[in-house]
């Protein structure tokens, strides 16, 4: 009974019409709030935002989902999502049509996405954009282009 109800709720969230905006689906379970935070949507927004947490998913078991009305997310934001939940799917909706559906991909270079954890790195002292080279995607490994320190996924702090 409870499962039926959840499935009905999931269906409701998915099908409710979004005229213009972005749907971020198939976020790994437990990452929804973090994505919300890095997109700056946790501090109040002028656009309606809907979030679903721990929804049943045939593909993932459980998933999170975010719908943002009247806002298409930027490449920089997509890059951040790629670091948090690479399996997510993004749909850009215009006039009720899905005009683009894609998976976030980690680019070779991350600019203004990750903060360098090295307190002596010049990127933490001058007004410059942080810049990281992606060394490995399978088990994420990045290198700061300034101080040259390499960091693993656990140490990634998003801006």
């Amino acid at each position, binding site marked *: 009974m409870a499962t039926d109800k959840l499935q009905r709720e999931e269906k409701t969230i998915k099908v409710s019409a979004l005229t213009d905006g972005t749907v971020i689906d198939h976020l790994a379970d437990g990452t929804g709030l973090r994505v919300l935070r890095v997109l700056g949507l946790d501090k109040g927004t002028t656009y309606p935002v809907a979030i679903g947490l721990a929804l049943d998913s045939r593909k993932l078991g459980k998933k999170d989902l975010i719908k943002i009305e009247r806002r298409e997310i930027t490449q920089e934001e997509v890059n951040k999502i790629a670091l948090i939940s690479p399996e997510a799917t993004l749909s850009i909706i215009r006039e009720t049509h899905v005009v683009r559906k894609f998976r976030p991909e980690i680019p070779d270079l991350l600019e203004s996405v990750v903060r360098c954890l090295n307190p002596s790195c010049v990127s933490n002292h001058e007004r410059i954009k942080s810049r990281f080279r992606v060394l490995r995607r399978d088990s994420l490994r990045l290198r700061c282009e300034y*101080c*040259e*320190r*390499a960091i693993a996924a656990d140490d990634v702090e998003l801006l």
Partner: protein
Amino acid sequence: MNSRQSPASPATRAEMAARFVGRDVTSMRDFTTDELLFVLDLSEEFERADEPRLKGKILANLFFEASTRTRLSFHAAMARLGGQVIGFADANVSSVSKGESLSDTIRMVENYCDAIVIRHKFEGAARLAAESTHLPVINAGDGANQHPTQTLLDLYTIRRIHGAFEGLRVAFLGDLRYSRTVHSLIESLARFNTELVCVSPPQLRLPADILDDLFERGVRVREEFNPTILPQDVDILYTTRIQKERFPDPVEYEKVKNAYQLDRKALSIYPTRVTVMHPLPRVNEISPDLDDYEGAAYFQQAKNGVTVRKTLLSLVLGAV
């Protein structure tokens, strides 16, 4: 690639030299192995010849952090080749003390010179400086990160003494955590089928990311954690000062500051001569009684610093 090649043909030499014109030297990672060997080969040529090839050129020596050897040797290199030097030796006398950003300082200085040498306490400062100007920028040390001209002079000294890098067994002794000199020398030696031994107190071991990288590349490297016991079977002992200024916690510094000292007695375990290197300044790591030991190479390193800096300045200023 063998580290001792036959001399380059004039065409190859011109082609290689052209690659360096106007180029920044901020990290050893920017050098391909053939470029690195080219700089060493050319330095052998430049060691003997002092022509006024940089006459009319001005170098800005921007030392935001104190240095004696590196600053003076860049100055000497420029002067030996007929060029002139402007700059400062302390951030307190520069406009940085008034709050000027590094990028602004560089964009101002670029109007006064043809090339810039920078030392700075922040890691990545040389890279940022290079991004702020069209002039060539040479990194003379950025925090605990890179010091490429030190690495080049170390490599030059090693090849001068041992002929080639292949098969050498090199032990690094002391502060392997904060020493930028050690980090970039290890990275460079790892390209040449060398065997590396890292000897340090546990608190000052080589950073995990560097060690992981060496393992991934299949480099023969091992760690030892008692610096009072010297490793057997090595050709070179590369020693470093425990750098007080890099320690966030003074108590940690006190625990390890006298972790080891090399003297003639300590070296008596080696049946044949070993090469003893140190980037200087030394404090207590090397006893003065080693200064006339035939393997002592640390003052030779300081001398070779002028040679490789002459080479690099000539290359980036297009005077080769």
